[in-house]
Structure formats: C-alpha cells, structure tokens
C-alpha cells in the first residue's frame, strides 16, 4: 500500500496550476476595497453569530436551524420589498419613501425570523427538554428541523433564487486609502453595530438580560432564585431570531440574488465559525469574530480567486480555532460578563 501511494505521489504529472493558485498582485491591488467589503460582510456574520452565541450560552446547544431562521427572514424581506414594487432596477421614489419601505421590510423580516425561532423552540426543542433527552437527541432534532424548514421553502418557492431586489444604488461617500466607501457599506456597518450594541446593552443592563446571564451561568440555581427558565429560553431564541431577521435585510441589500431555499446553510456555518472565533457564548466575541472572519474570507477570496473560497476559508478558520484555542479570542461566556 505505501509503495503504491508513494508511486502515486511521484507520478502526478502537473501539480502546478490545476490545484491551487495564489494571485498575489490582485491581492495587493485590491487590498483596501476588500478590507471594507469584508467588514461589511463581517457585520452581517456578526449579527447571525449572535443568534448562535446566545442560544449556546443559555442551552449549551448549537442551534443548527438558526441558518434557516435567518433565511426565512430573507424571504420575509424580499416578499415585502417585491410587494412594495422594488425590483432589479433601482427604485424611482424619494429617499424618505425608500427608507420607510426598508424599515417595514426589516420589521417583517425580524418578525418572520423571530416567529420561526419561537416555533422551533416550542415544537422541536422544548419536548426534548421536558423528556430529559440526551444531548445527541437535541443535535439530531436540530439538523432535522434545519432540513425540514429548507425543504418546506423549497416546495413552496422552488429551487431558484428569488428575483433580485435593489433598494438603492450605492453612492460614494468619502475616500480612505484611495478607496471609496459607499453609502451601502456605511448603512450596513452602522446599522449592524447599533443593533449589536443594543443587544449587548440589553443583556448587560435589563432585567431579562440578567435572567439570561443567570441561566447561562447555572440554570438550576437561577431557577431556584426565581428565574423562569423556560421563559428565558424562549426570549433568547426570539432575540436571536430578531437579530437574524435584521441581518436578512442587510444580506439582501448586499447580495440581492442570494435568497434561495438553501442559501442560509453556508452562511450559517460561516456565522458559527465567527462565533467560535470570537469565543462562543460571548456577545462581543460574536461581533469581533464576525468582522475578523469577514476580513479573512475576503482576503482569501482575493488571493485564491473564486468567491466560494470564502466558505472554505471560514471552515479552515473554524477547524484551526478549535485546534489551537477552542475558547476563541475573547473566550469566556455570557455568564461571566458583568452588568
């Protein structure tokens, strides 16, 4: 066997460009645009990663179906925008009307995602919790739910992506390092940051947030201290859903033709990788991990060529982080963050 394999390795005729090529000139040339674009994607990853992180903190469970919670939000956003007359061409209505429509779309998207997350918790996870099921059962249910939602969408909307929706044409706003920053990038990053700070503040300051932290720290003691654990779990799922629904609008803005029945799947893995990179269970870690992953992914894509390399790179990052530092960069968990 071993001589055979050795022979195999030696006899490979051309290993040069049929496997992996590094395009360094393109990387150097497009470094700054890729950086700002990567941060934009990173903000979206961060918002989705928060959903993974919150549920993980409270339940110690990877909610595989969170990517489907997100994609349902995308469908909600696209549905509202197409109903309001948006299409592939930029709209001709006034700026204020566009902003109003976008607000409506984000609200519907958040609602759709939150309802999906709520139903998921209610009908898939809660019966298992009540039965004291083993951990494996939760994970199997999660993956079953994920594909069940995906293929429900598939049966309703078919295999093709939804028609693209353009909300506004990105206009250059200012210039940094010879690179123009457009209004779309600013909108996404600023809005995502506001949402994440709001979520962070909610968890640190509010009464419910204190409950979430208590349950994450020690569910039994929290219950004894009068925290309604079931309610906290439901709220956590709903918050994760709301943030995913908001991310849905930004995703549709950034990639107008990316709304497909299985479009959330790879994004979910990337967001999870972001959560692990920043430190799973850590709210600020989700943001940091998201932004870093957005950058790494974009640089890798530049260096290696095809856009699908971002997915591969996110996966490699995930495996490397697990190998070197499984607690992530910021480590710790929601539980240990102080108010």
């Amino acid at each position, binding site marked *: 066997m071993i001589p055979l394999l050795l022979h195999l390795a030696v006899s490979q005729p051309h290993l040069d460009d049929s496997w992996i090529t590094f395009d360094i000139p393109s990387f150097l040339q497009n470094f700054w645009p890729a950086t700002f674009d990567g941060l934009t994607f990173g903000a979206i990853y961060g918002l989705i990663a928060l959903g993974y992180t919150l549920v993980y903190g409270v339940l110690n469970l990877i909610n595989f179906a969170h990517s489907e919670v997100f994609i349902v939000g995308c469908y909600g956003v696209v549905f509202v925008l197409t109903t309001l007359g948006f299409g592939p061409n930029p709209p001709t209505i006034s700026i204020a009307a566009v902003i109003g429509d976008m607000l409506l779309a984000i609200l519907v998207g958040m609602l759709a995602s939150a309802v999906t997350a709520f139903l998921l918790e209610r009908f*898939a996870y809660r019966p298992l919790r009540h039965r004291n099921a*083993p951990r494996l059962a939760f994970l199997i249910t999660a*993956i079953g739910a994920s594909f069940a939602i995906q293929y429900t969408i598939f049966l309703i909307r078919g295999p093709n992506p939804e028609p693209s929706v353009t909300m506004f044409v990105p206009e250059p706003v200012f210039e940094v390092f010879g690179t123009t920053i457009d209004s779309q990038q600013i909108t996404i990053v600023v809005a995502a940051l506001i949402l994440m700070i709001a979520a962070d503040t909610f968890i640190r300051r509010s009464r419910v947030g204190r409950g979430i932290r208590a349950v994450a720290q020690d569910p039994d003691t929290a219950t004894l201290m009068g925290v309604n654990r079931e309610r906290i779990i439901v709220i956590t799922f709903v918050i994760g859903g709301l943030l995913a629904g908001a991310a849905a609008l930004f995703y549709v803005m950034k990639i107008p033709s990316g709304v497909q029945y299985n479009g959330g799947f790879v994004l979910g893995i990337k967001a999870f990788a972001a959560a692990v990179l920043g430190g799973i269970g850590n709210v600020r870690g989700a943001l940091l991990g998201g932004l870093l992953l957005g950058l790494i992914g974009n640089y890798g894509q530049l260096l290696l060529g095809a856009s699908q390399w971002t997915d591969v790179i996110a996966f490699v990052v995930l495996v490397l982080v697990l190998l070197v530092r499984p607690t992530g960069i910021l480590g710790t968990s929601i539980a240990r963050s102080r108010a």
Partner: protein
Amino acid sequence: MSTTDGPTLIPDAESAKDAIDRETSRGPRKLGWYSRAGDWWAERSRPQQWAFLVIVVVLAYALPVLNPPIITTEPGNDWPIACFQMALYALVAVGLNVVVGYAGLLDLGYVAFFAVGSYTAAMLTSPDSPFLHIPYLWTVPVAMAVTMFFGVFLGVPTLRLRGDYLAIVTLGFGEIVRILATIIPAFHGQVGFQNVGHPPGVDGTGRPIFSNSNGTPWYWLVLTVIIIILLLVGNLERSRVGRAWVAIREDEDAAEIMGVPVFKYKVWAFAIGAGIGGLSGALAAGQLGFVNNQKFDVVTSMLFLAAVVLGGAGNKVGALLGGAIVAYLPLRFTAIAPYKYLIFGLALIIIMIFRAKGLLAARQKLLAYGKSTYARVIARSEQPRTSEPTADGGKKQ
C-alpha cells in the same frame, strides 16, 4: 460546566426512583416495536440461529432475481439497481452507526467521506484523470485509507471538545468537499470523471459483468461487502473497543474516570466510520461509472443520519433496515420522491421526540462472546432486580 440537558434539578428520591423505573421495570416494553423478535432470537439455539441466518442471506441474494410483485419498484426505477441503492444505503448506515450509534458522536457530513471515496476511486481509474491508473478493486482499500486519513484529520481537532463541535465541523466538511470539488480545477467540477473502472470479468457475450446498467452483480458485491463489514463491526462491538464506545456514549466523564482512553476510542470510531463511508463511496462510483460535484449534497448526510436513527442507533440490524428503508421508499413510491428530504427531516424530529430508540432499539446487553456465559450472568443479575421493580411498579399505578 453546568449542562442544561434537561431539568435535573434536585436528585430527590422520586426522580431517582423514576430513573430506576425507566431503566428496569418498563425496560422490555420500551425496547422497540420488534423487541419480541429480539427475545425470540436470543432464545433460539445456535444451529437454529444459523439456519435462520442462511435462509435470510439466501433470500437477500435472490432479491434482485425474484423481483417480488408488490415490493418491486414502480416503473421507471430499475429493480436490481434499486436493490443496489438499498444495499449501498444499508452499508452507509452500518458505517455511520459505528460513529453515531456506538460511540454517540454526531457526524453530519458523512456524505463528504462518501464523496472522498468516490473521487479516490474515480481519479485512480477514470481515463479523464491524469493520475496513475490502478485496477478498480485496488482503489477500494485506497479509498478507505484516504477517507480514514480525512477522518483522523477532522477528528483530532474536534473530538477533544464537546460533541456539538464535531457535529458542526462535520456539517461544514460535508459542504466544503463539494465546494472544493467545484473550485479546484483538478477535480473537473461539473464535468467530472467518466468511465470510472469496475471489477474485471466479462459474460458470454463479451460484455463486462459489472456494467453500469446491470445492478444485480453490483448488488451481490455490495451485499458481500456488507456481510464482511457486519462480521468485522460485530467483532469490534463485542471487543474492548466496542465496550469502550458504549461507555463513552452513555457517559463520557464516567468512562474517562474508569480509565477508558476516551479520545483515542472516539478517534477510532470516527476513523472506522469514515473508512466505511469511503468504501461505499468507491462502490457507488464504480456502479455509476461517473463522478462529478453534483452528487454529494450535504442533505444526503441527513438521509444517512435518518437511516441510522430510524433503524435504531446502536443496533446494526436496525441500521441495515433503516438504510434499506430510506433508499427504498422514494423508489417504491415515486410520488413521495420530491418530498423525501422534508419527510425524513420531519421524521428525525418526530423520532427524537416520541421514539428516540428507533424501530429496532439497541439492546442493553452484556457485550461479550459466549452465549452460556451471557445466560449465566443474566440469571445472576435477575434475582435482585425482580423484587424492586414490582414494589415500585405497584406504587406507580
């Protein structure tokens, strides 16, 4: 770390009693719909078991030739090829059962190992590939070795951590393999590799026996492989390794404390599972004669998992049955074929909530050779058990 597996608030007497109740008194009834069959089987003598097995095996071999009228697939689905598909899924389920059923590790990217096996076989035999060409049958062990390498490569970083990480890393791997097959030019993307090799031999008319359209010899080949794998896996199950797996599945911390090298045996289980996945991938590539990047959707992993869970995780006969059912239903009832992912996804949720043990439950039994020893140990352990559950059961009612 405080796990939140469920409301294990205060271990009071009542809940402890409940636990005992669950484990013992209602044990036989909880085992499975067909637990009677298991009891019946255990009561037979060795010659009777052998005779029965021979009949089953002969019937299994005769299946594609018999083509039973009601069982057969609907027009449009070739019956011998359907048999091959069923056998292939059964083989995959047996492999995944080692990972999920025995060691309790969730592998959600099993299709990736299947893909690696397929590509290994294709790239070593197809005239489209620039590599060294070896006879098809030699690619099977090579494919197993390559996939086992990937299994170890993925397992080592993740198996030290909690099971959830393994699940998502394998889920990612399932998709990544497909993406890599698309974007790395050497894998030919959608064009793929034509004319993948097959085992040697020609029939009277000079046509190869193992042709793509002739499912019967392929079915027999896979069935033989299944029997060999079942013997090997069965031996592993009853060995030190198998006992370690069950200990890890039931309680990893306890197993570690009792001196089981948990990490080592988890890697073992994962690598063996991966190897069987690669084996089935190589067989599938040979039968189809064509490999490209379109055949390895990550959702197929979910079908594989559904096969194991449906049949009964931890029970190899259950896994066989589950695999065959998952492959058979969409071929028999073509009307449900478009809905199969939805159906099996929902089935996973429903099974987990209402019947976590699947159709054929894994039986909690002494994993050791020797029927007489087993009977003696059972007889001895039965005595103290009988008194407690009756008192307990009386109180419950």
